[in-house]
């Protein structure tokens, strides 16, 4: 059994190959899939119209062709494992888009606590974009603006209660 199954989270060495710095700085975000275990699941592949998600059989782990990925977010909308993150660096700031299914719903400008894979608070961020939850069967997609060095760390957000 792989080590991450003992912990419940991935550590740096276990993460998938990152997109190039250049692709991250592209004007379109890029999908980054943290789904390292062979499970029978393929909606991300089926949702991708650009063949950017590579899987031979349903039990394979998905790999993203970062050059083919257009950042359209079709995969992140359906991922049942909440394992897809859209990453981007813009004007030297980092942006992470993630699936969010809690109340209160988030809106642009909301301040949030940013958490890492272990659930530790690693800082505060601001919501730069939020999809209306009704538009995706109540899985809100939210983009949080963080320090650009944190885009491979920030994996959850909690609304700051004022």
């Amino acid at each position, binding site marked *: 059994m792989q080590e991450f199954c003992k912990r419940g989270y991935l550590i740096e060495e276990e993460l998938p190959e990152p997109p190039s710095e250049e692709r991250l700085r592209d004007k379109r975000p890029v999908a980054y899939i943290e789904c390292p275990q062979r*499970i029978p*699941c393929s909606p991300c592949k089926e949702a991708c119209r650009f063949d950017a998600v590579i899987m031979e059989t349903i039990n394979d782990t998905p790999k993203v062709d970062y050059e083919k990925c257009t950042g359209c977010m079709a995969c992140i909308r359906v991922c049942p494992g909440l394992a897809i993150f859209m990453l981007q660096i813009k004007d030297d700031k980092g942006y992470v888009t993630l699936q969010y299914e809690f109340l209160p719903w988030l809106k642009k400008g909301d301040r949030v606590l940013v958490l890492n894979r272990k*659930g530790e608070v690693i800082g505060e961020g601001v919501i730069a974009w939020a999809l209306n939850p009704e538009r995706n069967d109540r899985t809100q997609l939210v983009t949080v603006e963080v320090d650009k060095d944190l885009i491979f760390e920030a994996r959850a957000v909690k609304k700051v209660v004022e």
Partner: protein
Amino acid sequence: MSRLQEHPIVDFKRGKEVTIYFNGKPIKAYEGETVAAALYAAGIRVFSRSFRFHRPRGFFCAIGKCSACMMEVDGIPNVRICKVYVRDGMQIRTQNAYPSAENDALAIFDRIIDRFFPHGSHYKKFTSSKTLREIATKQMRKIAGIGEFPKALPKEEADYEEINADIAIVGGGPAGLSAAIYAGRLGAKVVLMDENPYLGGQLIKQTHRFFGSGEHYAGTRGIRIAEILTKEVKEIENVDVRTETKVFGIYGKTVAAVEKDRKLLKVNAKKIVIATGAYERTLIFENNDLPGVYGAGGVQTLMNVYGVKPGNRGLIVGSGNVGLILSYQLLQAGVDVAAIVEAMPFVGGYFVHAAKVRRLGVPIYTRHTILKALGEKKVERAIIVELDENWRPIEGTEKEIECDFICVAVGLSPAHELLYQAGCEMKFVPELGGLVPVRNKYGETTAEGVYVAGDVAGIEEATAAMMEGRIAGLDAAIKLGYGDEEAVKLRDKIVGELEEFRRGPFGERILRGLEKVVR
């Protein structure tokens, strides 16, 4: 107030406000709620007393499979209140307790008996003389008992209907529904029976998106899949759907059932599909019968179907997919999750499910188990402990966990009774969760024309249940002469997809189990 007013995923549509009476005390409830959910929302935790020692009991499964919630309803004893819906003016009473289950005078026996006669010792203690044994047994029976003789008769008139059908399907969960849809589409006359007032089985509490392939609704929430399948089945004219219909017997090819508690059904079918699902398992630890120790599915029912919060802070025992998904759902309902404990050295369910609760700060203790639950009449705390390599508790590693409820998510057992009655050859297969029938790759058992699909065929995911249901429905209809080569092709395609689905590491155990029963 433990009723959820808002929830990120579910809109709770509550009916008209009604008043029910619990041991004479009025309680507000909403139409559409079960008595168990309404009592729970009103803060009632002790639902019954154990037969012999009068220990307090709460509910456990919330889907009518255990007997922890039996009460007297309008004079009728031994009613599972998790399966009865509230009606204005309903009289509910706890039974086998004086004056009530909450404050039971006979509870004193629990303490005394525990001290002088440890549990089970009466089997040895009164065996020396026959007379003594008879006296002791008689007295113990008196304080045990299961309710009193009914004080009222049901008001409804009994009714009877005989139906002739091609295929009778027992169970309207993902497997039964899929079987009905696929057999129905080929033109077979199908009768689909389910004991609940709704279809969808346990899908109706699965608020998360499903895994699998898009063709089998991956990426769609379980609750939506229930809606989709229900709509599909109702569109097929030759499928006769009977809800609130409890199947109690299979005699050859005749299925006997009771519809809405007043109508006896005799369904003469050429083929039968049994898709009765599974029961939740419990786990042995001290005080595991204390109110507040629930099956994971019971909590899902309470929280996601009726919108009643199970408590403020829960401990989850078991890190299979059910335990992990439940933890996430508790967080969504605004309930704290103290921890997830897992006896194995690694997470039992999908890693991604673990990752999504872990990143929200829920600790997962692998190689740990629950030692005991603590509390007077309900759970107040729990003690967990680390296990060594031989699964023995390591002394000195006990940790006290603050929690007001405990969810046992240690797996399911197939609900196999009807299969036995139908005369199927059964086998105990641990990999499949317990007693399952011997069958062929289309799900046909050794009782000719009797098919099996879903969790009752072996505990797996709902996706596999849907595929099994489709295969069984198609095969049964094809054997009756419905459908053409296309139907045969479709059936074989789904058989192939199911094989592919099980080919990953999570399918290994299932495949090992299937080797023992699929001929």
